[in-house]
């Protein structure tokens, strides 16, 4: 990993069109500004990981979908009935 020191207000460029700026530095937190082309996805890492993990878990297979389909339909019908 490349490690660089930056002061508040200073930036780092990545490639031609990504700029990462240290906006503010607190006790335990830094605020970072990112300028990137709109097609570049910028996410907090934990959200990116959580979504990757969830997609992987979801892709595990469709076993039980038949059973779940039946349960969901009954649940949905009961709920619709309740709302009437």
């Amino acid at each position: 990993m490349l490690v660089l020191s930056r002061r508040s207000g200073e930036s780092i460029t990545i490639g031609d069109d990504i700029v990462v700026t240290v906006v503010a530095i607190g006790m335990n937190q830094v605020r970072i500004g990112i300028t990137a082309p709109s097609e570049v996805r910028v996410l907090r890492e934990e959200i990116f990981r959580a979504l990757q993990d969830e997609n992987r878990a979801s892709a595990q297979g469709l076993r039980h979908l038949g059973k779940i389909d039946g349960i969901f339909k009954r649940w949905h019908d009961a709920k619709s009935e309740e709302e009437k």
Partner: protein
Amino acid sequence: VRSAQRRAVKKQDLAALLEAPEQEFNFPEGLLGFASYQRFFLAPFRPDDGSPSPFYILKAPEEAISFPLIQPELVLPHYRPNFNREVLKRLKARSMADLLLFVIATLRGRVEDITVNLAGPVLLSPASRLGLQVVLDSYPVRYPLLDSQSY
């Protein structure tokens, strides 16, 4: 009236999707964790008894990768996230009414543990045949498919 018309358009698209056994969608960015898979097929799920199902299956043709999808309004009627213009641009769509919104379900052994991913919905454009998984970090990644009180 306009929103009713839009809904009607959406319903027609959905009806078309229901009739088609399989439709191809291209996900230029893949799905998170599956960036290398760009070609997916959407097919309605058919249980053994042949009855219509609220579930759809999004599957990559090359591998045994399949995601169960469901329309979020069936799970959570007031789930109406805002999507920015960039999303429409990427799907080559003019408005949200041209798009189909699904959430991915994660099946687990216990029915109570099954969740849908409200933070990573899937948008499909039947016109451009493009698909996109959008990230909405203000929504939960795991929301129960069945409301525990009703179940």
